[in-house]
């Protein structure tokens, strides 16, 4: 238990440290940008890293044919042993199409979910606020009435009435 807590603390400290450091020495920091403007070697390095990242995103952005999975499955199933080749699942694999992941499918509902969550949070806060205000109002009113009774009929009588 203790180690778990310590690990959590350590993780949050590391995260904060990373955030603080990246704020100061990240590529978008002013002093880094100023240096890059004047230093040809750093400019070249940055351009090279940019090229690699650009190439990676280009590769990722090239979609493959939808039927490629079907084709690959058909070819792979074709070299498996006879019992597997003729299994009903093998037939299903031969016509299988790629489906988006659950995370990607939920992506379009992200904003609506965030709005609903925000509304629920506001309602909860309002409810908590209203109830606590009512409670405070009730306590204050009781105090005032008790004071009124104390001044009119005496402290003991007032205590007796309000303790009941």
């Amino acid at each position, binding site marked *: 238990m203790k180690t778990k807590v310590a690990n959590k603390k350590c993780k949050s400290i590391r995260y904060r440290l990373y955030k603080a450091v990246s704020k100061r020495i990240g590529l978008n920091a002013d002093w880094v940008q100023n240096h890059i403007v004047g230093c040809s070697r750093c400019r070249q390095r940055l351009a090279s890293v940019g090229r*690699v990242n650009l*190439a990676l995103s*280009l*590769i990722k952005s090239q979609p493959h044919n939808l039927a490629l999975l079907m084709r*690959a499955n058909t*070819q*792979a199933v074709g070299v*498996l042993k006879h019992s597997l080749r003729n299994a009903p699942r093998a037939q299903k694999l031969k016509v299988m199409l*790629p489906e988006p992941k659950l995370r990607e499918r939920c992506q379009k509902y992200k904003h609506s979910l965030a709005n609903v969550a925000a509304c629920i949070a506001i309602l909860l806060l309002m409810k908590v606020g209203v109830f606590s205000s009512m409670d405070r109002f009730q306590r204050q009113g009781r105090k005032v009435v008790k004071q009124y009774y104390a001044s009119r009929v005496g402290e003991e009588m007032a205590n007796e009435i309000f303790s009941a």
Partner: protein
Amino acid sequence: MISRANSCGLIWDFATADSLSGTGAWVLSAMQRYGPELVTMLWRILGNEQDVCDAYQDTFLKLAHFEGGQKPEHVKAYIFRSAANVAISMLRHKIIERKNLSEAVTDNSIRSPAIELDSKYLQESLRGGIAQLPEHLRSVVTLHDLAELSYAQVGKILGITAATARVYRCKAIQLLTVLMNKKE
């Protein structure tokens, strides 16, 4: 309702097939489970449909014949690593063939800025760079950047920590910048 019934049917199929582990039906369930991700990764490494199908076939053939038809302990790790290895060796062969051909046809030593920014050229030079990376760095790049697995998953597959995977990826990018800038 029908689709739900269908998916239930698929789950049932999985359950019955996995219970018959001796028949090797787990190969099919692995194909169904990891197939789409694997095809995406192979497509990104190879960029050619026929090569993807060949590498995919080789991977599952290896899996089916692993230690005389035994199921590996970590199927996902086995599939992804062997697929990446098969794809990289195919890529290397292709690069060598292309080099020989281009040497025979023209001299490509001068590169214009327009060519350097050409998307196809960039993709090919990145693929060439990845093929030249040392194995430990290459595995991290292929699994993290091309198969889009998280660092934790990459670490699990390669038997390293997520932090090590992150460091390897950083080193791989540095090396790739050098390899891509090198004149061929």
